[in-house]
């Protein structure tokens, strides 16, 4: 039997970060992982998908953009097996990095599946582990819909889709959320015929700014993907040459042919696992573990972080909570009080956001808003990169000019959004962003210009004077 001050269950971006911080704080820490260190994120999620998306991006540009720069490519072949190897090596590097960090911090790694016996004890296989405190960080799993049971050969979850060893000819992707669109755009770029089946009227509905979603939808269609909106997947049938997927669009049924079916309709928290009941941990009817602002469960010494404790299901939220919880256990007075969890979608172009969408601002009682956009087409760096689609959109409170939301669709949106997150956490006004000198020529200038645009007078676009003839801050 092993005893720890802190037992972490799950070694994803929530769990391993919590374990390291707890160890830094002087605790004796054990971490339990049933699969690979790093969890979904490092092994079958964020990291491998980004490797494949990057590869497909380069592949696509080589075929479409490079000739403008004078590159004459005579035949460009894809060794997909090699690509897969490289992708796996990326995940492998990250996962072994986690192993080293855990070891370097004297965290004991226990392989296996945890089952609670009581509030102070759990088992992993035949081994009993006792803890003074527990951190449940076991994340979520893909939702399965009726008629589409995952076999991970032909009917794939995100995990199977990222493990494909060839480019399938015809793909039906059910679910136009961020995971579905990321996978669809990468497969499309490598040549799959892709049909996205989405039950709502737009892709990424309710998740990102509608105008940003529109840019991505247009680009996907331009690249040759088919988007079926208001479409319900009813079932599938195996035929001689693949599958027939029955889809109902606006009440009419139609058949889509596919070699692979990818189902990414969302993820559900793993609150139904680990026998949490035995520990007296309250789980809500959607499977989320119920926690307070310190991420404490109904048991005061047991904490839950990441996907399993609530939306948004994002790795960086889990990591933030991991640090928080370790410090709470140490006795520090901490709560989760972040103003924004930035979100990133690695579509083409990328979408990234921090703060609130316009609808959310209004729901919060901000009725007078300043909203404006600055296009990447007016940015020198974007032009010189040949990546001019998209814009930076800013939303601010009209009265105080305090930045409420930033929504970017465009090149490197994922890398640009951190400035917006910082600005929002710091309570920055539009002027703070506009008056900060941004280096030229960079994509980052679009942030400064978007702030200026929202105030009414960006330099690199022609703006009509505001109604009172004055810009908002002159």
């Amino acid at each position: 039997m092993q005893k720890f001050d802190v037992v972490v269950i799950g070694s994803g971006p929530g769990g391993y970060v919590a374990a390291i911080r707890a160890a830094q704080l002087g605790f004796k820490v054990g971490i339990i992982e049933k699969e690979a260190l790093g969890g979904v994120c490092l092994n079958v999620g964020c990291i491998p998908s980004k490797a494949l998306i990057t590869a497909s991006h380069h592949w696509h540009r080589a075929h479409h953009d490079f000739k403008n720069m004078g590159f004459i490519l005579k035949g460009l072949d894809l060794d997909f097996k090699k690509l897969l190897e490289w992708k796996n090596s990326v995940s492998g590097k990250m996962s072994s990095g986690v192993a080293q960090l855990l070891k370097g911090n004297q965290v004991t790694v226990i392989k296996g599946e945890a089952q609670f016996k009581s509030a102070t004890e759990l088992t992993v296989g035949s081994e009993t582990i006792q803890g003074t405190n527990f951190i449940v960080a076991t994340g979520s799993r893909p939702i399965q819909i009726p008629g589409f049971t995952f076999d991970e050969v032909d009917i794939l979850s995100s995990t199977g889709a990222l493990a494909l060893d060839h480019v399938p000819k015809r793909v039906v992707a059910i679910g136009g959320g961020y995971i579905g669109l990321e996978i669809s755009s990468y497969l499309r770029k490598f040549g799959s015929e892709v049909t996205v089946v989405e039950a709502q009227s737009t892709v990424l509905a309710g998740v990102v700014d509608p105008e940003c979603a529109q840019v991505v939808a247009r680009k996907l269609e331009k690249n040759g993907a088919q988007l079926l909106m208001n479409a319900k997947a009813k079932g599938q049938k195996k035929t001689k040459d693949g599958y027939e997927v029955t889809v109902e669009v606006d009440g009419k049924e139609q058949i889509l042919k596919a070699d692979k079916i990818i189902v990414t309709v969302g993820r559900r928290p793993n609150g139904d696992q680990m026998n949490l009941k035995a520990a007296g941990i309250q789980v809500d009817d959607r499977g989320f573990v119920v926690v307070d602002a310190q991420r404490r469960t109904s048991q005061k010494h047991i904490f839950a972080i990441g996907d399993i404790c609530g939306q948004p299901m994002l790795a960086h939220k889990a990591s933030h909570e991991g640090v928080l919880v370790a410090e709470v256990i140490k006795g520090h007075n901490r709560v989760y009080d972040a103003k924004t969890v930035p979100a990133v979608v690695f579509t083409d172009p990328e979408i990234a956001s921090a703060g609130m969408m316009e609808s959310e601002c209004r729901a919060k009682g901000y009725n007078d808003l300043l909203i404006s956009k600055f296009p990447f087409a007016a940015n020198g760096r974007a032009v010189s990169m040949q990546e001019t689609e998209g814009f930076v959109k800013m939303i601010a409170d009209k009265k105080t000019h305090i930045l409420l939301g930033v929504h970017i669709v465009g090149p490197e949106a994922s890398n640009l959004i951190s400035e917006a997150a910082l600005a929002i956490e710091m309570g920055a006004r539009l002027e703070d962003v506009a008056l900060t000198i941004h280096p030229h020529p960079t994509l980052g200038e679009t942030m400064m210009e978007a702030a200026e645009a929202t105030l009414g007078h960006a330099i690199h676009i022609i703006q009509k004077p505001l109604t009172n003839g004055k810009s908002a801050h002159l």
Partner: protein
Amino acid sequence: MATDVKLPELGEGVTEGELLKWLVKPGDTVKTDQSIAEIMTDKATVEVPSPMNGVVKELKYKVGEIVKVESVMITLESSGQTTTAPAATKPAASTTTSAPATKAPVSIGATLNVKLPELGEGVSEGELIKWLVKPGDTVKVDQSVAEIMTDKATVEVPSTVAGTVSELMFKVGEIIKVENIILKLSGSGSVASAPAPVQVTQVPVAATSTPAKIPAAGATQAGPILYPPPADFKVLATPSTRRLARELGVDLNGVPGSGLAGRVTRDDVMSAKGPKTSAPQTTHISAPASFPKPAYVSPAGAQEERVPLLGVRKKIAENLQKAKQIIPHFTLMDEADVTQLVGFRESLKEAAEKAGTKVTYMPFVMKALIATIREFPMFNASIDDAAGEIVYKKYFNIGFAADTPNGLLVPVIKQADQKTIMDLSKDIVDLSTRARDGKLKLDEMKHATITVTNIGSVGGTYATPVINHPEVAIFGMYKISDKLVLSPDGKVSVRKVMNFTVTCDHRLIDGAVAARFLKAFINRIQNPGVLMLDMH
């Protein structure tokens, strides 16, 4: 050969500890790794092991003294086994060379400490009124263990952990600061749902400077009390300022921001915390520095007793001193013929009894007062000196002075204008009972817009009460007596007469206004029927 045994490193950042107990005495034979003393640090209680075999020659400290890391705790006379050791230039090391391991397990006493949690904004300490547990008792998580009286309210302190009470650290009447350990529990009991204490850790045997980490287990973890609450999204404070506020126990939701567009700055948080942060060593929450603090020099041999000025009494002293310093007071007095009111109230007695309460004169006075204030809104105002503004309040929260064993308390009836006479009666009974029992919640003593004092129920014809700053008036009601009154037509009759006073902040309220106010009030209270006209 004598060898000095030093206090080893106890953990990161721990430089000293208090000697709780000697586990050996001079003349005892000790073995390597045998515990020789218990030391309490701010993180845990540890047992200090002997690095070698020997006979105790001298104990260098007394129980209760503070021992610094690396200072010599005891002297040992080495026994036979160490004679092979090289010359004792480095005595401690001499034995470790022959010891196979340089580290040995040491048991951290299975002690769980219960600390005094944050009690509220600006509250740094409290007086222990009563222990609710005694040594040997089994305590559950969240079970109340003590009653603590702060300058604002009496609160019950819950235990953050479960266990058996081993030691009470304070006596009734003593002052306990927030974060002080108030009691110790031993966690040996079979407590199912509670975190078990960490039993074992490693400290180096040799008195070298090898760092050792002593994990602070569940014993020192924060309790379930979440104070302050997370800041609202609209509060503008940077992440580091939010953390500072949390660590200082400042609720950002109530802090006015002095920065651009209402940003709450670090300075705002510091000043919201009050003088305590700049002078953490102060024993009491000090009154604003501008008040004189003359000493009282006792005459030689005088029979006197000195007790600390603390708790409710201290707060009363501070508040009244502040009120008198800030507000130029004046008091206007008059008498009212309440014959009708007395009859009216008599007629309601039965109905009130049926409703399970009793109706005093106070609710009638409150109703008449509210009706009169609607005519004279400056009586329901405050002066914001910092902003140079008068704040007129559109709500009516009436405080009433309650005489309690702890001293004067002012419970507040919120939105009194929206309550019936019966509601007010019930509230008054409830709040004054709980005021006497020390069970009022902090919130129930806040945000009055005007106060009524009924000192007359005890005695006195008239008084000049002190306004409860930042209110601008206090209304006084006095005893009812029979009086021979000469009416304008020359007839003499016996009337019920009651005296009233209104004490005003002269900065805002002129004498003539006060006179008109009191007259308008008296018109209402003399004719309770008129009150009906104001009812919604």
